[in-house]
C-alpha cells in the first residue's frame, strides 16, 4: 500500500515548510521510520520519517521548494504499485491530503530561524499581492474581472509569507471591536484573506477557536513573617522616577513581536536563570530581626524590595505590550503569587519602587494573609506590572513561571540551599538561591533581562543598599 510523504505540521504555528534535502533518491528502498527528507519549518530544520516501507517512488516537491503544511511531497510504494492517481489527487488539492508524517524533531535549534524571521524589519506590507481585481490603468478593464484570479478555496494559510495575517479591513475592525484574535482564524477569501464572514462565523461560535492560554503564575506561597511598621527606608542610589507613557513601537520591535508571538503563542516567553549568593542577605535579615521587636523581615521581603529597586532601574522590564505599542508603567506594582487550595492568586504590592523594606514587609504580609483567607478585593489582585513567584518553601531549586499578561516578566524563586561553590580557587559551601526570570520577548530582550537580573543579584548580595 502506498504511503504519502507530506509536509508535516511540526509546530502549531507552522503554515508551510521548505524542503531542504531528500535523504533518499527516487527508486531507493525505504523502511518505515527511515529519515527520508529534511524540511525547514518556521523554527527549525526537522527530519521527515517514512510512515511506511517500500520504495521512494516519486519525489513531488523538490529541494528548495516551499509548500503548505499537508501538501504531498513524495510517495513511498511498492515498486509496481500504481501511484498516479494519488499524485494527481494531491496535485489538485495539495492541502487536503493531510496525513502528517510525524517527523520527530531531531533538528538543531541552532539553525532555527527562517529567512523571514532572521530579518525582523519588514517593509510596509501591501495587500496588493494577490488577486488584483482593478485593472491597471492600461489594462483592458472589462476583461479584468473575467481574467482576475478566481476566488481561492477555503482554508488556505491565513498568514502570508511575510508573516502578516491577511484580513480585510472590515474583518480587522470587527475583530478588534470584539476582541477576536485574527491569527487564530482561517481565511476563506483570496489568498487566505480573512473576510467579514469568517469573523462573523467565528463570533457566532462555529469553529473551534483555539483557547488563549490563560493567565497565571506558578503556584507559590511566599512567606513573610509578621512585622510592625517602622520608619520607611528610602532607596539607595537615586534613579529617575518611573514615568507613565506609551511609546509607539519601532518597526523592528513590531516585527519581533509579531514573529515571536506567532512562534509560541500570544506571549512569547524566554527564560533566564541566575544564582544569587544569599549569605549576606540572610545575615542582614538575622541582624534586623535580632534588633527589632517589630515584625520579622523575611527573605521574601528583601527579594520584593530588591525586585522593586531593580524595576526602578530597568523600566523596560516594567512594561507591557499593547499591540504595536509598549506601555511603560509609572509604578512598580508587584504581583505576589500566593498558592490557594485549587489555584492561586497574585495580590499586588502597589508602587513598591517607592516603599521602604519595612513597609513592603508589612504590606506583603497583609496581602498574603488576606489572599489566603480569600478576602482580597479585585483591585488588590489586578493590574500588576511584574510578578514574583516563590516555591522555595517546597525545596524547589529552580523553576520557570508563566507570565501573567499584560505583565512582561515574572521571577521564579527557588529555595535557598547550601551548595558547593568555587571561590578564590577553593570549593566552599555557600547559601545559594536560584532565580529564573520569564520574559515577554515582545517587550524585553535577553540583554535587558540579563541586566535586570544582574542588578537584582548585586542588590541581594550587597543587601545593605536595600536599607538606604
Amino acid at each position, binding site marked *: 500500500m502506498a504511503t504519502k510523504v507530506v509536509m508535516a505540521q511540526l509546530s502549531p504555528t507552522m503554515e508551510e515548510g521548505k524542503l531542504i534535502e531528500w535523504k533518499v533518491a527516487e527508486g531507493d528502498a525505504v523502511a518505515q521510520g527511515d529519515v527520508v527528507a529534511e524540511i525547514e519549518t518556521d523554527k527549525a530544520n526537522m527530519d521527515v520519517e517514512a510512515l511506511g516501507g517500500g520504495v521512494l517512488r516519486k519525489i513531488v516537491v523538490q529541494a528548495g521548494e516551499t509548500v503548505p503544511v499537508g501538501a504531498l511531497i513524495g510517495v513511498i510504494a511498492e515498486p509496481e504499485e500504481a501511484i498516479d492517481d494519488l499524485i494527481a489527487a494531491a496535485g489538485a488539492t495539495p492541502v487536503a491530503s493531510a496525513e502528517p508524517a510525524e517527523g520527530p524533531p531531531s533538528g538543531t535549534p541552532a539553525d532555527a530561524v527562517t529567512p523571514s524571521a532572521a530579518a525582523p524589519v519588514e517593509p510596509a506590507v501591501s*495587500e*496588493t499581492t494577490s*488577486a*488584483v*481585481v*482593478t*485593472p491597471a*490603468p*492600461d*489594462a*483592458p*478593464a*472589462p*476583461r*479584468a*474581472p*473575467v481574467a*482576475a484570479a478566481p*476566488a481561492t478555496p477555503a482554508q488556505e494559510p491565513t498568514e502570508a509569507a511575510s508573516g502578516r495575517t491577511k484580513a*480585510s*479591513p*472590515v*474583518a*480587522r*475592525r470587527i475583530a478588534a471591536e470584539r476582541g477576536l484574535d485574527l491569527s487564530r482564524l482561517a481565511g*476563506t*477569501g*483570496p489568498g487566505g484573506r480573512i*473576510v*467579514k*464572514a469568517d469573523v462573523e462565523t467565528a463570533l457566532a461560535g462555529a469553529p473551534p477557536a483555539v483557547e488563549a492560554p490563560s493567565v497565571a503564575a506558578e503556584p507559590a506561597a511566599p512567606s513573610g513573617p509578621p512585622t510592625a511598621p517602622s520608619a520607611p527606608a528610602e532607596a539607595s542610589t537615586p534613579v529617575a522616577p518611573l514615568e507613565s507613557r506609551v511609546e509607539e513601537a519601532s518597526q523592528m520591535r513590531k516585527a519581533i513581536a509579531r514573529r515571536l508571538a506567532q512562534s509560541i503563542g500570544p506571549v512569547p516567553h524566554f527564560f533566564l536563570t541566575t544564582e544569587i549568593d544569599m549569605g549576606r542577605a540572610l545575615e542582614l535579615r538575622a541582624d534586623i530581626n535580632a534588633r527589632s521587636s517589630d515584625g520579622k523581615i523575611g527573605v521574601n521581603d528583601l527579594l520584593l524590595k530588591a525586585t522593586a529597586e531593580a524595576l526602578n532601574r530597568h523600566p523596560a522590564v516594567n512594561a507591557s505590550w499593547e499591540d504595536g505599542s509598549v506601555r511603560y508603567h509609572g509604578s512598580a506594582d508587584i504581583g505576589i503569587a500566593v498558592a490557594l487550595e485549587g489555584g492561586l492568586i497574585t495580590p499586588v504590592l502597589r508602587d513598591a519602587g517607592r516603599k521602604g523594606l519595612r513597609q513592603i514587609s508589612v504590606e506583603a504580609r497583609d496581602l498574603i494573609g488576606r489572599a489566603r483567607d480569600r478576602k482580597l478585593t479585585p483591585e488588590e489582585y489586578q493590574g500588576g506590572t511584574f510578578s514574583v513567584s516563590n516555591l522555595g518553601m517546597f525545596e524547589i531549586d529552580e523553576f520557570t513561571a508563566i507570565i501573567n499578561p499584560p505583565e512582561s516578566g515574572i521571577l521564579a524563586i527557588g529555595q535557598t540551599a547550601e551548595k558547593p561553590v568555587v571561590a578564590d580557587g577553593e570549593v566552599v559551601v555557600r547559601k545559594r538561591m536560584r532565580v529564573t526570570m520569564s520574559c515577554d520577548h515582545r517587550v524585553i530582550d535577553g540583554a535587558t533581562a540579563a541586566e535586570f537580573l544582574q542588578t537584582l543579584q548585586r542588590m541581594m548580595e550587597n543587601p545593605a543598599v536595600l536599607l538606604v
Partner: protein
Amino acid sequence: MPVLSYRDALNEALREEMERDDSIFIIGEEVGEYDGAYKVSKGLLERFGEWRVRDAPIAELGFAGLGVGAAMSGLRPIVEFMTWNFALLAIDEVINSAAKLHQMSGGQYTVPVVFRGPGGAALQLAAQHSQSPEPWYAYVPGLKVIAPATAKDAKGLLKSAIRDNDPVVFIESEIMYSLVKDEVPEEEYLTPIGKAEVKREGTDVTIVCHSKLVHQSLSAAQALAQDGIEAEVLDLRTVRPLDVPAIIESVEKTNRAVVAEEGWPMCNIGAQVVDDIQREAFDYLDAPIARVNGLDVPMPYAKNLEKIVTPNAQHVAEAVRHVCYS
C-alpha cells in the same frame, strides 16, 4: 405618472424653464429649424422664436464663447453641442472662461451657462465620436458635471442646472434618448445637483455608477439576485461634485464596492470614487474595490470590436462576483 423618454423629459425641462424665465435662451447647431440633431429642442423655435432658439454656425468655440459672454451679461444660455465630441473645439471656453471667471473676477461675474449634449458611445461612431467626456470636465474646479441615467433625473437635473448660477456640463446619451423611458412626475420638481440616488437597494455590494452604466448595473443586479447576491446600485447622477457621503454610507453597509462607468480607466470618475472609499471607509471594506470600464483604447469602428471594448452588464456582474469572492 406619465412615462416619458429621456429625450422628451429633457425637452420638457427646457420648455418649462424657458416659460418660467425669459432670460433663458438656447444656442447650437440645428437646435431651431431642425428641432435639434436629436430632437431634444423639438418645438422650441416655434414656441419661443428665433431670439431665444438660435441656430449657430458650425463653430463650437464661437458659440460656446457667446454663451459664456451672455451668461456674464445677465442671461442664462443653454449651449447645445451636437455631441460632446464636438465640444473639444470649444473646451477653451468651457474650462478657461466659464469655469474660472467667477473666481478670476473676484466674484464680480457669475457664469450661469449650461453646456449640454450627448456623450459616450452610440453605435459604430468610431474613435472620434464615441467618447465619455465626464472625467475631462470633472477634473476642473469651477464646473459642475451632471450625467443623468433616467428621464426623471434628466428633467429634474436639467432644470436645476439651468437655475444654477455656475457653469454646468450636462452630459446626455444618444442611446438613452429613446431607449430610456420612465415615470416623470407631472407636477414641477427639481432634482438637486450633487446628490446620488440609490436606484436599487442591496446588502452585499455597492455598484457605484452613472449614466448608461446605471442600466447595465441594474440588469447585473437582477441577474446576481438569482444567485443570492443583493447588489445596491448607487447612481451618482452628478459626478462633480461627488456625493461622497452617499457612497460611503452604502459601502459601510455592504462592505464591498464595484465602480462602473463607460469611459477609459485612467483618471476617470471611478478612480476618484475608489480613492474616496479607501480613505473614508477603509475599515468597512471586505475586499479590494473592483472597477468596470471601457477598454483603454480608442473606440474601434468594427461592430464586433466595439462590443468587446464597451462595458456591459455581464462585466459588472463578474466584477461583483469577484469582490464577493463568489
